[in-house]
C-alpha cells in the first residue's frame, strides 16, 4: 500500500513565521525532513516547537513562509490531510472497538456498514494490534490507543507523522513498542518528526536532531555530534547568553529538618523514595513529564495520595494535614479569577483573618494583604482590582505569595516561572530565596536547567520514578556544566533501563 518508499520525498519548511499578539512564536523558521528518516526536534520550553506542530497539523495558520512536500520532480504545498499527529490527547473513539476505530474513517462504499478488508487487517498486524481487534478501545492502555491512531493515519495514506512527547505517560516497555512503530513508519518511507524533552530517547531514535531556539532555526545535530550532552549544552547556552545567570552561592543548611522515607505513590509512579530536605534549602526536582517528579511534589503536598513517612524535625506528620503548601505551574489552577488581588492574597489564611467563630476581620485581611503586596513585590494599583487585570508575572507572584505568606515549613512549587517575563522571574527567585531564611525549605519541580541554576541549591534528578542523581549547584562551573551533568544522569539511567 505504500509506494512512496520508492520515491524520495522531503518536507520543506521555509521561512515560517507566526505571531500571537506581541509574542513572536516562530521567526523565519526553516527545516527539512526527509522520507525514510526520523528528524528529532529539540528546544527549550516556549521555543516554538508546539506552534510548529500545530501549523504542520493545520490547527494554526502560518503568517508567512511556506511548507511544501517535494519529490524529485514535483513540489506541492503540504496538505493537512497527509499529516498525522501522535501525542497523548488522542483523536480516537474510546467507546468503539479497535477495528471500528479504523472503519469509521472509510467513505461509504455502498455498504450499510463497512466491513474490514485485507488492508485494515494488514495494518493491524503491522502495528501489532491484531489481538485487540474487537476490544473496546477505551478499556485498552494508552499505548495501544496510540498505535490505533497510527494505524488509522496509515489507512488514510498520511505521509507525515509527528510524534509530540508521545511516550510521556507510557511505561518503558510500552515506549519501546511505540518506538518500534515509529521506526516501522520510517522504514516504510514516511517522513517522521519526533519531539521530546527526553534527550536520551531523542538521540537514540533520531537520525538527525534540529534545534529550535526562540522560534528560529538552531544547530542541526548529525553524525558524531549527535549526543545528549551536546544538545543539552546547546539548549542552555542560548538561554544564558540572553540573560546573565546568577548561580546560587554555597549556603549553610541545617540537617534533621524534613525527611521523606519509603515514599510510594498510589499509582506506583515511584516506590520507596528517600529524600532529605534541609532547613533553608531550595531543592529542584529535575524531571521531564512522566519521570514522576510532578507526582512526587504533589504527593508531598498532600494533593495526591502516597504512602510512607514524612518526618518534620523527627516527628511524623500527615501529608493531608502537614501545613505544607503547593502552587501549581498553571495559573488556571492557582488563581481565583473571580476574586480581587487582595482576596487572592489572603484566601489561604483562616486564623489570621478571622476569629474562632469564623467571622472575618476586614481590617486584618487588608493589613495582611497589603503586607504581602509589599513583601512579595506585587505591582498593582489597588488590592481591590480583579486579579485577572494583573500581568501574568504579577498573577504568578500573587499565587506564590498567597502560599508563602502562610509561613509553611515546606513550600512545593511546580515550575514557578513558567510563562513569566524575565523581571518577574528574577523577583520570584528572590522571594523564594528570601522565604528559606525563616527556618523553612522549598522544593521545586523544574523542567529547565536555567531555572535550576538560578534558584536551587541542590538538584535531584528524577527519571522513570527514581531519583537517579544529586547535583550540588554551587559545585557547577556554569549553566552548561550543570546541563551536562543532568544529561549524564538521565542518559546513564535510560541505558541501564533499556
Amino acid at each position, binding site marked *: 500500500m505504500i509506494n512512496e518508499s520508492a520515491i524520495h520525498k522531503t518536507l520543506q519548511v521555509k521561512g515560517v513565521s507566526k505571531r500571537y499578539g506581541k509574542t513572536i512564536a516562530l521567526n523565519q523558521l526553516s527545516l527539512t525532513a526527509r522520507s525514510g528518516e526520523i528528524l528529532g526536534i529539540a528546544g527549550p520550553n516556549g521555543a516554538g516547537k508546539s506552534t510548529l506542530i500545530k501549523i504542520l497539523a493545520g490547527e494554526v495558520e502560518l503568517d508567512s513562509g511556506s511548507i511544501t512536500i517535494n519529490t524529485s520532480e514535483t513540489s506541492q504545498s503540504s496538505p493537512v490531510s497527509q499529516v498525522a499527529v501522535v501525542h497523548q490527547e488522542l483523536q480516537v473513539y474510546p467507546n468503539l472497538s479497535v477495528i471500528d476505530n479504523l472503519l469509521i474513517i472509510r467513505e461509504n462504499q455502498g455498504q450499510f456498514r463497512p466491513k474490514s478488508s485485507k488492508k485494515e487487517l494488514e495494518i493491524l498486524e503491522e502495528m501489532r494490534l491484531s489481538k485487540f481487534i474487537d476490544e473496546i478501545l477505551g478499556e485498552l492502555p494508552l499505548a495501544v490507543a496510540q498505535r490505533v491512531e497510527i494505524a488509522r493515519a496509515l489507512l488514510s495514506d498520511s505521509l507525515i507523522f509527528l510524534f509530540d512527547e508521545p511516550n510521556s505517560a507510557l511505561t518503558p516497555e510500552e515506549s519501546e513498542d511505540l518506538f518500534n512503530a515509529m521506526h516501522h513508519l520510517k522504514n516504510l518511507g514516511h517522513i517522521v518528526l519526533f519531539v521530546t524533552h527526553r534527550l536520551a530517547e531523542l538521540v537514540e531514535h533520531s537520525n538527525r536532531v534540529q534545534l529550535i531556539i526562540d522560534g528560529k532555526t538552531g544547530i542541526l545535530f548529525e553524525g558524531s555530534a549527535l549526543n545528549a550532552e551536546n544538545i543539552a549544552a546547546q539548549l542552555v547556552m542560548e538561554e544564558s547568553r540572553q540573560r546573565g545567570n546568577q548561580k546560587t552561592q554555597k549556603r549553610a543548611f541545617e540537617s534533621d529538618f524534613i525527611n521523606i522515607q519509603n515514599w510510594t505513590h498510589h499509582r506506583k509512579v515511584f516506590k520507596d523514595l528517600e529524600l532529605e530536605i534541609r532547613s533553608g534549602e531550595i531543592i529542584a526536582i529535575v524531571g521531564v513529564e512522566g519521570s514522576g517528579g510532578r507526582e512526587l511534589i504533589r504527593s508531598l*503536598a*498532600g*494533593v495526591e495520595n502516597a504512602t510512607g513517612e514524612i518526618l518534620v524535625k523527627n516527628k511524623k506528620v500527615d501529608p*493531608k494535614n502537614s501545613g505544607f*503548601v*503547593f*502552587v*501549581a505551574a498553571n495559573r*488556571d*489552577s*492557582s*488563581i*481565583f*479569577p*473571580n*476574586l480581587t488581588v487582595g*482576596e487572592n492574597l489572603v*484566601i*489561604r489564611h*483562616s486564623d489570621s*483573618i*478571622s476569629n474562632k467563630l*469564623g*467571622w*472575618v476581620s476586614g481590617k486584618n485581611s487588608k493589613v495582611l494583604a497589603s503586607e504581602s503586596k509589599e513583601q512579595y513585590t506585587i505591582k498593582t494599583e489597588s488590592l481591590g482590582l480583579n486579579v*485577572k487585570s494583573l500581568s501574568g508575572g504579577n498573577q504568578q507572584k500573587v499565587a506564590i505569595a*498567597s*502560599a508563602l505568606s502562610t509561613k509553611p515549613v515546606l513550600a512545593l512549587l511546580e515550575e514557578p516561572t513558567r510563562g513569566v517575563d524575565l523581571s518577574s522571574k528574577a523577583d520570584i527567585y528572590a522571594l523564594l530565596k528570601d522565604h528559606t531564611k525563616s527556618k523553612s525549605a522549598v522544593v521545586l519541580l523544574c523542567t529547565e536547567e536555567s531555572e535550576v541554576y538560578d534558584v536551587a541549591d541542590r538538584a535531584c534528578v528524577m527519571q522513570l520514578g527514581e531519583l537517579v542523581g544529586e547535583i550540588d549547584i554551587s559545585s557547577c562551573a556554569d549553566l552548561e556544566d550543570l546541563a551536562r551533568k543532568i544529561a549524564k544522569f538521565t542518559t546513564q539511567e535510560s541505558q541501564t533501563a533499556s
Partner: protein
Amino acid sequence: MLVFSLLSHGLFLYVDNLLGLLRYASSLAILGLGLTVVLIVGEIDLSFGALYGFCTTAFAVAFLAWNWPMWLALVFAYGLAIFWGAFNAFFTTIVKIPSFIATLGSSTFIFGFTLLIGNSNTFATAAPPLGSHTSKDSIKFFRAISNQELPAGLPMQAIWMVVVMVIFWVVLSRSIYGFRIRAIGGNKIAAELAKLPVKKYKFIAYILCAITAATAGILDFSFIGTIQPNSGQTFLFPVFAAVVIGGASLQGGIGNVTGTVLGALILSIISNGLSLLASGAFAQQIFLGTVTIGAVVIDVVLRRRRARS
C-alpha cells in the same frame, strides 16, 4: 410597576395586591438565598422545591397527626432538612455525580418520601386529621408565626424574610465561610490544591439550601394553613429566575444576598403584573422560561467577555 399600574387600570396598585406580592416575594427570596449559596459554591440544587413540600409535610404530620409539641415538630422537620441537604451533598461531593443530575434525582426521591410520610394527604390546620388532639391554642400559635396583623397590613412573612436575609448577608459577606465559598466556586481545582475545605463547605451549602426550603415551606403553611405534598414544586423556576436575575452565576463564584432579594421582588412584580393582565397561565410560563434562559445567556456572555479581556 408603572407600566403594570397603567395597563391594569390601577388594579396593580391595590394595597391587597401589593401586599400579596410582597408575601410571594418573601417566599421566593428565602428559597433563593439558600440556592444562592449553592450556586456560589459552584453547584446546583433542583431539589429545594421537593424539600419545601417534604419538610413542611413532615412538620404537619408530626404536629397535627402525631400530636407532637410544636417545637419538637420543628426540630423534626429541620433535622430532616439537614439530612436531605447532606444527602444531596454526599452524592455530589463524595460519589461525584454532577449536582444537576444528583438533585434532579433526589427531588423525585424526596417527593416519594413526602407522599409516604403524609400518606399522600393534604394537611390543613383548620381540619386536622382524624384522631388529632393538637390543642387549638398551639395551632393558633403556629398560625400566628406568619399570619398576623401588622401595622399597615404588612405580611409577617416579609419580616421573616428580612431576618433570613440579614443572617445570610452576615454569613456571606462577613464570615470566612462566605469568603471561601466564592473561591471554591470560582476555581474548584485551585481550591482543592490550596487545601481549602471544599467538601465540607459544599455540605454546608446544601444543608443551608435545605434549611431555607423548610423555612419557606413552614412559613407558607403557617400563613395559608394548608400544605399539599407537591406545594413546593411550582417554586422551582421562579426561584431560579429570581436568583439569576439577582446576578448569581450558574458557573459558580458569584452571587449576593441583596441581588437575590431584589431579583425575587422584580420577579414577583412582573409575574403578578402579568397575571393581572393576561387571561391564562401561559403568559407566566412563557415569561419564566424567557427570563431563566435570558438571564443565563447574559451570564454566559458576560463571563466570556470577562475571560477575553
